[in-house]
């Protein structure tokens, strides 16, 4: 089998396309959402806890929890979904803690991101990759 230079390039391009994982379909959308949420302020790593499974059995129902001591709001995003917005929690004067759990949809393996507006007005960030498996049987 003769492989021309053109074929080699084509193969190479295919390989590159295959290695772009996990999904980053809406990375630009994520930056825009963070900017809107923070008003352009800097975001530091930490200050917020994000709990999500390392491997989700089904992308349709993925349990997650967020928590940030004293935070007035937490924004949750999924970077690889068709649109990155998931939920925004605002905690009122009678919130027992700045924490919440819910169940979310993930279109595939991707990063889940939480940004918290902390008590001192600064912003903290947590990020976690969730692998979404493909089921064995359609059923």
């Amino acid at each position: 089998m003769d492989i021309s230079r053109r074929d080699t390039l084509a193969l190479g391009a295919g390989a590159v396309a295959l290695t772009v994982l996990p999904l980053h379909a809406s990375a630009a959308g994520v930056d825009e959402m963070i900017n809107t949420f923070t008003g352009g302020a800097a975001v530091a790593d930490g200050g917020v806890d994000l709990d999500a499974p390392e491997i989700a059995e089904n992308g349709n129902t993925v349990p997650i929890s967020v928590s940030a001591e004293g935070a007035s709001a937490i924004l949750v995003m999924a970077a690889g979904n068709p649109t990155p917005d998931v939920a925004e929690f605002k905690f009122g004067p009678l919130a027992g803690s700045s924490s919440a759990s819910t169940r979310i949809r993930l279109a595939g393996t991707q990063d889940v991101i939480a940004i918290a507006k902390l008590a001192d007005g600064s912003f903290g960030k947590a990020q976690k990759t969730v692998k979404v498996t493909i089921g064995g049987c359609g059923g």
Partner: protein
Amino acid sequence: MADGVKPRVKAPKKADAGEVVTIKCLISHKMESGQRKDKDGNVIPRSIINRFTCDFGDQNVVDVTLAPAISTNPYFEFEAKIPESGDLKFTWYDDDGSVYEDSKTVKVG
């Protein structure tokens, strides 16, 4: 109003003054994402619960904005501080303009 929508809330009936209690809420709702297509290839329009709030008296506990990435039958678990005897009020807002409500009385002492 969408079919079969029914809120469910789990909250304690009693608490000590100032106690922090755990609350679970679930509403049966299909949360149609607006991303799916029907058999003929037409996009099924988005139809979701877009906001959920919990208040105690006239003070807010939590106010959540929901996107289509929240799963079918939206579920939330969070904590509330109970200052005195009163009612926890829960409200879900549907894309179609419907508002679903539930409330739970918590007795202090």
